[in-house]
């Protein structure tokens, strides 16, 4: 009886999620161009990830994106939410509405907007020229050094609101007496932050990190629209390499291997973050 209720969902889920997942593992053991006969190559596609410069770079960039998408927003969000929790200010709900907005806008739209900002004659360079910092102007997304942090900051812009709203909800549950007791002891804002606020929102920090890290490792559309991984390979990420290899270069086996590795990486990082979160609480 219960199985009949689950069957329709499970059927669709098995056909379009579980089976392809298994097929991805299977395909990753072959050298295949998507058309002719595939040859079995064992784990070669996986060892390539370690030896191929472009793939190694892609996974390295993924870690840089974890910093911009997850670590930086959590740091910013903690300070921001703490400041707003200490003093009841008006307009907090309007603030919540605004900072959460980047989460609901299609990433392609976000990417189009930021491309305009980073363009050679875009808003950022115009601003720099206006304040006399002409020397700093550059085509941000075409620069070998600055394109990666430039794209990363778009991720920070997207994530910070979500993280802040999440932390605000957690901090709202801290009993007022805790703050009052701390103040009677003469604790200042900084001590209050580290000894009361941060420990109280450990669970929210864990959730925020999990959400944003997974989002950063899944980033595809942002890269596709802003830089296509360039210039050179300076902003490519594993998810973009999966697409490029499978559908542009005809290296389906390698694409599958990168995809499987990315999946394992997402599971591993999530498990570690949650383990640390549990141990600390």
């Amino acid at each position, binding site marked *: 009886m219960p199985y009949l209720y689950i069957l329709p969902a499970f059927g669709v889920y098995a056909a379009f999620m579980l089976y392809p997942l298994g097929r991805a593992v299977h395909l990753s053991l072959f050298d295949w161009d998507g058309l002719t006969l595939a040859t079995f190559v064992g784990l070669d596609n996986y060892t390539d990830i370690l030896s191929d410069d472009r793939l190694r770079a892609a996974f390295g960039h993924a870690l840089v994106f974890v910093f911009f998408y997850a670590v930086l927003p959590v740091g910013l969000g903690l300070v921001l939410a703490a400041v707003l929790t200490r003093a009841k200010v008006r307009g907090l709900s309007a603030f919540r509405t605004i900072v959460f907005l*980047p989460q609901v806008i299609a990433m392609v739209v976000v990417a189009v907007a930021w491309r305009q900002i980073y363009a050679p004659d875009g808003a950022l360079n115009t601003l720099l020229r206006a304040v006399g910092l002409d020397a700093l102007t550059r085509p941000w997304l075409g620069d070998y050094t600055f394109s990666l942090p430039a794209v990363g900051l778009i991720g920070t812009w997207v994530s910070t609101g979500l993280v802040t709203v999440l932390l605000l909800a957690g901090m709202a549950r801290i009993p007022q007496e805790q703050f009052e007791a701390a103040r009677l002891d003469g604790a200042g804002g900084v001590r209050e932050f580290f000894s009361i606020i941060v420990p109280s929102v450990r669970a929210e920090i864990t959730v925020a990190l999990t959400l944003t890290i997974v989002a950063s490792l899944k980033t595809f559309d942002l890269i596709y629209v802003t830089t296509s991984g360039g210039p050179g390979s300076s902003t490519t990420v594993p998810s973009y390499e999966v697409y490029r290899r499978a*559908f542009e270069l005809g290296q389906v086996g390698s694409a599958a291997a990168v995809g499987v590795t990315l999946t394992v990486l997402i599971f591993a990082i999530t498990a570690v973050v949650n383990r640390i979160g549990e141990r600390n609480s």
Partner: protein
Amino acid sequence: MKVSSTERFLNYAVLIVFSLLVLAPMLTILTQAFGPHDAAAGREGAFHPGNFLAAWQEGRFGQYMGTSVLVAAIVVSLTVILSVLAGYAFGTMTFRGSTVLFYLFLLGIMVPGETIVVPLFFDLRALGLTDTVWAVAMPQVAQSLAFGTYWMRTYFRGVSPAIVDAARMDGASPRRILWSILVPMGRPAITTMVVLVFMWTWNEFLIPLVMSPTGAFRTAPLGLAFFQGQYTQGTALLAAGAVLVALPVVVLYFILQRHFIKGMLEGAVKE
């Protein structure tokens, strides 16, 4: 809590500066969307709402958004029905293998679309099913089911057993209990799921990109990406297109904001 007026002032400054940082890129694109799209239009004034009509027709955004509506309708309705059924079983019944099956569903929340889209494309192509609306929609149904099953299970587990027991005493069948009592009662939880799945489907990029190689089922975000590729001169129409693509979800967000925030925060929180 009492704080000094200096701190209060600083708090407002933080609030405003941060809001502006978030709003600035959106306002930039909104301003551009109403701006002149070429020099000739520039001489006629600074306000050009006609850009939206031009994007709708020349940029074919009308057609792309039609496809998006079709795909979203399929994904949302299938996900809701299937998740309610599966969540009902997971949330209210005890049976062998329920834990293992449930964890299998949870797995899908974290699997990146990139991993499944590669084998799906080649397998569906072998069956001659790429470039159909189903190839674009069904993988997204599977992805949404991972969240939907989890979400509905949480709702059904939260329902007081007394309600179910009372209905059972009255002789109601499990099917009747589900459709005449639990589903109407769970309207808030179902609404949250509907808005989230709609948003994810509307904003999805990779699956429609791969599954419709000829572009026959090009959804709105893809239309925007391709429009950017071919339309390099003049940013006004591109900006207008971007606004059109973002608009449906943003409007829905302003109406049902609590559902968006609640769903995205609680959907990830604790098991």
